[in-house]
């Protein structure tokens, strides 16, 4: 009998029930979409902020000061310390390897140009292909880590070309001073050798780098007789904004209690990643570039908080909207409920019937709404960030609980109210 009654309502009052299901679907899709976007926005924005460049620099432990402090410039004559190029792959083996988005090594020297001028030449990776010990492979280098460079003429140096070893990229200032064009062949003389190279591209970096020459790491190593040596590494990592624990840990990780240490080590704080890089690369000091790390944290925090508040508003909005409609629909059925009461139905069985009807409608609505919300989330993900928003499974129970709560909270008081009315009055049509 119960089933028949419910079926009757669901099929005979199709229009009304569809309207309720539709509204619940809208509310559920709003909740699903917003929750998913909110949960993923941190990763997405963090990914976008990578355009600011590296947030960690790795230098050899002993020599990092010498050229800066003593102003000796050329490092070759000194017994300077270096990092090893073949250890770079280890960066992708640390605990937070997955968060390391990109990295590139640097090695610089002074070269003498045909005009007699001396400029700084930097050896680095451009789009270096790297096969990792883990079996993965990736392309890393300055092409992605200097996204703000304008290659004003020519092209980025491509490590997939055959003769990339005898190509260079030149900053606009150098190109202007020397009158170089793309395609020119020039002779570079360094401390331990000389080489004829071709200008592959001219870039405008809007900074010091405009007065420098960039070439592949191999070329600079060969010119200065420093095989497998690297002066510094820039690392771009996705990080969690610092909190108090991270700041304490940055000062001295060993002073933490073992539990705090564990929490810190297993959270993607920039200090934790630095610490793990130091463990992986022998004789290295990894430092957070505060200009990037700090600002990233601030912007991420703000964006997340903003999204949380907007999500909260839309959740409250859809909850009120749904419960409002459910209340209205129950009150509209006062006559029917009055009739049921008049023919002797008990209060709890009426409540049971009405609630079951509404909950079934809500279920249908929320399933449809979840998929609609999925669509909205992907729409936002693709049009804003150009990538899919990850659908978090935890959203499903949250939305389900929310809809259930809202429907029950919206219908129960209304049913109670209607039940309190006297059947005769309701049937008579007086209010």
């Amino acid at each position, binding site marked *: 009998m119960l089933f028949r009654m419910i079926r009757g309502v669901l099929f005979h009052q199709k229009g009304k029930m569809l309207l309720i299901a539709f509204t619940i679907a809208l509310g559920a899709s709003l909740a699903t979409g917003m929750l998913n976007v909110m949960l993923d926005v941190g990763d997405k924005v963090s990914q976008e902020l990578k355009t600011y460049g590296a947030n960690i620099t790795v230098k050899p432990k002993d020599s990092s000061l010498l050229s800066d*402090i003593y102003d000796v410039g050329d490092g070759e004559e000194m017994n300077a310390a270096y990092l090893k190029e073949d250890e770079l792959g280890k960066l992708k083996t640390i605990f937070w390897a997955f968060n390391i988005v990109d990295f590139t090594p640097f090695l610089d020297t002074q070269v003498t140009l045909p005009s007699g001028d001396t400029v700084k030449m930097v050896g680095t990776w451009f789009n270096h292909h790297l096969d990792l010990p883990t079996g993965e492979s990736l392309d890393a280098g300055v092409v992605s880590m200097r996204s703000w460079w304008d290659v004003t003429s020519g092209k980025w140096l491509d490590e997939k070309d055959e003769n990339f070893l005898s190509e260079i990229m030149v900053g606009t200032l150098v190109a202007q001073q020397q009158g170089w064009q793309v395609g020119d062949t020039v002779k570079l003389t360094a401390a331990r050798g000389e080489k004829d190279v071709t200008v592959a591209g001219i870039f405008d970096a809007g900074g010091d780098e405009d007065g420098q020459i960039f070439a592949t790491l191999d070329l600079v190593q060969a010119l200065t007789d420093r095989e497998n040596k690297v002066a510094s590494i820039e690392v771009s990592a996705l990080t969690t904004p610092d909190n108090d624990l991270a700041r304490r840990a940055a000062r001295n990780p060993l002073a933490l209690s073992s539990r705090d240490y564990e929490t810190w080590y297993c959270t993607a704080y920039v200090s934790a990643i630095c610490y793990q890089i130091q463990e992986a690369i022998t004789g290295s000091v990894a430092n957070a570039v505060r200009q990037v790390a700090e600002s990233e944290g601030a912007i991420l925090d703000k964006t997340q908080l903003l999204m949380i508040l907007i999500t909260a508003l839309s959740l409250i909005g859809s909850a009120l909207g749904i419960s*409002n409609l459910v209340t209205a629909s129950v009150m509209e059925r006062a006559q029917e409920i009055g009739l049921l009461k008049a023919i002797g139905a008990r209060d709890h069985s009426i409540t049971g019937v009405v609630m079951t009807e509404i909950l079934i409608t809500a279920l249908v609505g929320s399933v449809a709404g979840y998929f609609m919300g999925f669509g909205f989330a992907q729409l936002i993900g693709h049009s804003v960030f150009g990538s899919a928003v990850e659908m978090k499974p935890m959203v499903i129970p949250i939305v389900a609980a929310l809809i259930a709560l809202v429907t029950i909270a919206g219908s129960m008081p209304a049913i109670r109210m209607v039940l309190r009315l006297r059947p005769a009055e309701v049937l008579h049509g007086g209010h």
Partner: protein
Amino acid sequence: MTKRKMFLRMITASLLRRRSRMLIALLSIGIGATILSGLVTIYYDVPRQMGAQFRSYGANMILLPKDGTVLTPDTLQKTLALLPEEELVGATPYRYVRLDMTRRQQSFTSAGTDFSQVVKTSPYFSVEGEYPQHAREILVGKEIADTIGVKAGSSMQLTYKPTVAVSENAADDWVPLATVRGSAEGWNTSLVAVTATLDSEARIASITIDASSQTEEYGGRTQTDEAFQNQFIGKKLPLTLGEDVDALSGATVTSTAIVNALNHARSVSQAAVATERTGYYTVTGVLVTGGEEESYVFMSLEDMEALTGESRLDVAELSVSANAAQLEEYVQALTDADTGVTPRLVKRVTRSETAVLGKLQALVFLVTAVVLLLTMICVSTTMMAVVSERRREIGLRKALGASDNSIRAEFLGEGMFLGALGGVMGSVLGFVFAQVVSINVFGSSITFQPLLLPVTVIVSMAIAAVSCLLPIKRAVAIDPALVLKGE
């Protein structure tokens, strides 16, 4: 009773009598309006607020002296006056010199700056200790601090040596510079410029005269007359005309100017040598940035001036709260104004900021659009439910002889009244919400957008009207008998 009065009475009566239902409708419109006005306010405010957050990346514009000129604090102030004050977050002047650590074979790049501005343009600077607040206090980069072992509270002795070449075995009471330059007024008060190189014993080794401003056949000959110029070689400054050197005949005024110019150049050089000064400084903090600033020493501009005896700047870093296009405009405006500075954008910051800020704005826009759309549909479904419930009433009125149009007008009027009420309510609540968000997220309040009030009210009324129309149309179309019968 007039028709209008009757209309009003019917609307208010129905609103009052059916309180609970009308409350539901009002609530639902109110929610819609709150979300509308709240989100739109946030949407308009986000770029500004987020832009301010992005300033934590530091300077996005730098001012350099034009080639061959010197940047002075005055020039800087003049230039800054050209930028809109409310968009200028901070402007930090820098003067870089190399200072030696007295009695130690070490020298550091030192920057004279204004710490009150550093805090604004470089908010990412982290100081272990405190920023200097008084004279003779300095901030030391972490790398230097680690190397020489200083910390907050230590004191350091720093010496400034002018970077001009100084001869070591001076025979005179003043240490001569390798080259002295000077100028003085000659014939017709035009300037005559003289450059002389000095040997290690401060004697003139060579002399170059620029008397192009003088009459060619008189004073102008001093430029080429070898016999006249040779008189100077081997002599020590200062010189007296008529004793040390003789004036060129027919060019006495110009010859006097040449001697005066050399003597003046000597006194200036003396002053320059005398500026080799030493000062004692207290370290108030150690600077950690992870960048090259860690190998600098920072002191106030006043201390730097006292130490070097010069009031000049090398560069000024500006943090301007504006997007890339606006920044380009400012650069153009500053270049056109020609105040003696070359503005340049820090590409790394401006480029990335434009990219990321654009995405964030698009995100908030889309989210706002989706939330608004869904909320508005939600509102209209609720309104529809409330109105369709009144089919019986409509049927009864029709049976009593009411025309379709008067029924439509009455119900629409009722709906729009609710819409207006809900719209006003929502505008206020929405502003409160936006304010709460702004204070919690960005720590600053927002201004009320007066335009948003009528927009919200009109949109709410429109939505209410549209969602009433459909059920009314249906009810009106039905035979009153059927409706009354309860079908």
